[in-house]
């Protein structure tokens, strides 16, 4: 590998890592604060991608798709939290697993009813449909850079909200002590609804942003879910910081792994996870 | 002088910068009832957890009957002959009283990795279970499901389970916490009985109870041992009066 290839792969892995972080952060937030494991997180990602497809077909603009898609995802999140997740808080994780697994089956079929079983492409917006040349014969697509910038901005935004705002304080307190939050006079019910909806919206946004990169197909949420679980397990469940570094690590491993050890490429991320678990059974930042 | 059963040397537990237990030295004599006093947050429960292996010490050492216990996990310490009861009732709520104690008694078998023979056919375990139930006064409640028993009975059950592990030293973390007057009196009686056969380390807030049963006392404040001595020595200690008893109104 020459330097330019390495550079491009590095950019790819950072971009992939940032996107993974965006999606995983929703999963880890919902777990860390609400103690709920949402297996349907990947399905939310898929719904986001299909919304991007539908809205772009309709309006022709990815920007509009984002503006319309996020409120739709928030509503989906609120409805699911209020009607289904709400009854699970005091119960065993086992039931959360089953309920959200059932939800996956339903959402997958809804997708197939609404949009069929074909693979669809979503065009990259014209404005971002170019590439920046790195060397004479190597270039990097602008859209990927734009996605990275958006993800990075959201990561910084999330950090700021959690560290500096009142909502963030409640979130941090809620992660460690539910009674204390209640004693502060904050409505935990509402907080939970907000967090769950935000988590769903983050997954959905991840889906919208990746639609032009990866095409849109049935069952696309499954793979993402598993990779996100690996990210969250590596980083430590509930830790945003852990999700960030976990995602970066997986980004690197899954971009460079296939180049360095092709025979093990698909199981590489799991080997990394196994290794982390051996050393730190509760993840890197738990 | 009686022989030393357990000796803790400079035992320290640091929770992220906070010294919950700070260089504690403690000697338990064989056959004595030793009580630990101290205000909330003095590190009493942490000390018991260190001795029982539920948490690992940051530094220091524990010797029991001449054997080093310092880095051993709780299940090994249990097999060395130290039993403990918990401050918060810690039982198997859905099992009967008999089944609760059974599980403790069964742990004295060489191994429980036995898959073929029905457990209930192990006569020696059954015998140990029945003696322990008798000893803690729950013989008549053997078939009652633990969660349906009164709080006081659950505390007794906790002691029964501890006895079934055939310990020589009993660590009892606030055995009377949350009990009514009558139940407390019954338990003081039980502790006095146990004191005839076992060495006891007792954490207790109830002063009357402590002075009624303890041979020696250790007073802890802020994770450190303030003073150790007989009840009379402790009562008359200037230091203890100032640091602890005085502030809470004394005796």
């Amino acid at each position, binding site marked *: 590998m020459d330097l330019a290839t390495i550079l491009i792969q590095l950019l790819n892995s950072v971009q992939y890592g940032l996107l993974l972080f965006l999606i995983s952060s929703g999963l880890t937030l919902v777990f860390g604060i609400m103690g709920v*494991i949402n297996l349907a997180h990947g399905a939310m990602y898929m719904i986001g991608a299909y919304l991007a497809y539908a809205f772009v077909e309709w309006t022709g603009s990815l920007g509009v798709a984002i503006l319309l898609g996020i409120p739709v995802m928030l509503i989906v999140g609120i409805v699911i939290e209020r009607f289904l997740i709400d009854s699970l808080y005091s119960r065993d994780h086992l039931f959360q697993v*089953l309920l959200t697994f059932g939800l996956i089956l*339903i959402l997958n*079929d809804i997708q197939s009813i609404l949009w069929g079983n074909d693979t669809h492409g979503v065009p990259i917006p014209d404005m971002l449909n170019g590439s920046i040349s790195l060397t004479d014969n190597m270039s990097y697509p602008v859209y990927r850079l734009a996605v990275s910038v958006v993800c990075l901005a959201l990561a910084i935004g999330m950090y700021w909200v959690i560290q500096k705002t009142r909502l963030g304080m409640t979130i941090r307190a809620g992660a460690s002590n539910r009674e204390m939050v209640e004693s502060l006079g904050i409505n935990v019910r509402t907080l939970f609804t907000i967090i769950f909806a935000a988590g769903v919206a983050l997954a959905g946004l991840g889906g919208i942003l990746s639609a032009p990169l990866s095409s849109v197909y049935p069952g696309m949420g499954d793979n993402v879910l598993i990779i996100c679980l690996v990210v969250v397990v590596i980083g430590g*469940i509930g830790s945003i910081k852990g999700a960030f570094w976990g995602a970066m690590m997986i980004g690197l491993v899954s971009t460079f792994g296939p180049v360095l050890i092709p025979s093990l490429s698909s199981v590489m991320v*799991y080997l990394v996870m196994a290794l982390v678990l051996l050393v730190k059974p509760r993840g890197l930042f738990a | 002088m009686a022989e030393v059963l357990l000796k803790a040397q400079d035992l320290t537990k640091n929770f992220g910068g906070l010294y919950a237990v700070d260089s504690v030295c403690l000697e338990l004599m064989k056959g004595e009832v030793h009580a630990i006093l101290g205000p909330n947050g003095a590190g009493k429960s942490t000390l018991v957890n260190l001795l029982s292996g539920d948490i690992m010490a940051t530094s220091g050492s524990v010797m029991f009957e001449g054997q080093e216990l310092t880095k051993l996990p709780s299940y090994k310490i249990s097999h060395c002959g130290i039993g403990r009861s918990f401050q918060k009732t810690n*039982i198997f709520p859905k099992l009967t009283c008999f089944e609760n104690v*059974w599980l403790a008694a069964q742990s004295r078998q060489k191994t*429980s*990795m036995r898959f073929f023979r029905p457990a209930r056919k192990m006569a020696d375990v059954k015998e140990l279970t029945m003696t322990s139930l008798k000893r803690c006064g729950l013989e008549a409640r053997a078939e009652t499901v633990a969660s349906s028993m009164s709080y006081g009975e659950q505390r007794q059950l906790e002691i029964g389970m501890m006895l079934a592990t055939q310990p020589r030293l009993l660590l009892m973390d606030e055995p009377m916490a949350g009990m009514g007057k009558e139940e407390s009196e019954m338990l003081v009686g039980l502790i006095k009985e146990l004191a005839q056969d076992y060495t006891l380390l007792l954490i207790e807030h109830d002063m009357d109870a402590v002075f009624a049963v303890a041979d020696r006392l250790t007073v802890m404040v802020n994770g450190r041992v303030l003073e150790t001595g007989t009840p009379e020595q402790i009562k008359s200690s200037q230091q203890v009066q100032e640091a602890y008893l005085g502030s809470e109104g004394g005796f």
Partner: protein
Amino acid sequence: MYNTPRPISLLLGFLLCVLAFYPLYGDLVFGSKASFFMSKLTTIVIFAILAMSLDLLVGITGLVSMGHALFFGLAGYVLALASPEYEAASIWYILPLVLLCCAALGAVVAFLTIKTSGIYFIMVTLAFGQMGFYFFNDAEFSGGSDGMYIMLKPDVSLGGIQLLNLDEKQTLYYLSLACMVFVYMVLRMILRSAFGQVLIGIHANEHRVKAIGYNTANYKIVSFVIAATLAGLAGFLAASQYGFVNPSQMGWHTSGYALMMVIMGGAGTIFGPAIGAFVFEILHYVFESFTDHWLMLMGAVMICVVLFLPNGIGGALLSLVQKKETTGEKNDG
């Protein structure tokens, strides 16, 4: 709590008879479809074995595994890979080999995951299951996502005399049924044994079990290995029946369905998950027969079970029987 109440034993005995005599009345009741239904029943019985093996983890030990299908699928792959190409493998070496491989992988996974608990354990077992899935999905030697064929079913003969012919549907049906009863007996035995007592304690309060002197990690690992081995038995039968194995048999959807069977039937009751397997697969068949979107209906059923029947069918039966018993006692007194 370790003895199945009499009415339930009778019910189970009756259901078993219904299954055992199927070949006698199948033709009369289902006519030309009888043979198809026998294959279907064989599949269900095999799933019942898988679900019961998972119950040892979920219902008895309290370890919620979302990667149990890993061992179910592995068994098929071992059978396919270790069978000679042009002749049938003798069951006397192939079955022990399959079970041994499942036990060995079970031990490795258990060793890596057992220190985690609760939600962590769920996620990590799921991830390990997927690791197996991708390994076989991407490997050339195992046929990638198409999987592998098992051309000739294992040969069951002794001293040159064929004892069972697994190509006969009915033989395979009875073999599976016998295995189901065997696994049920094994699990009952384990539950009553000293080992089982410790597992029950771990489920209820692991911290306390440690404090009274058990090295709980070892017990959990052994429990996991036993469950993996029994899942391997189910996988062996499944691969023998289908004649092929593919990665999706070890995917996390299969694990999820197995978990659903356990909960639907009643975790911790052992017989419940077997009933759960029957209900789940019959619903599957019924839904599938009138809509392409049967998975959606299964999802809805899952959600309903979680919300309205958390103790499963087995749990409901048990409480029904116990209620009758207590009111009966009152009437007597």
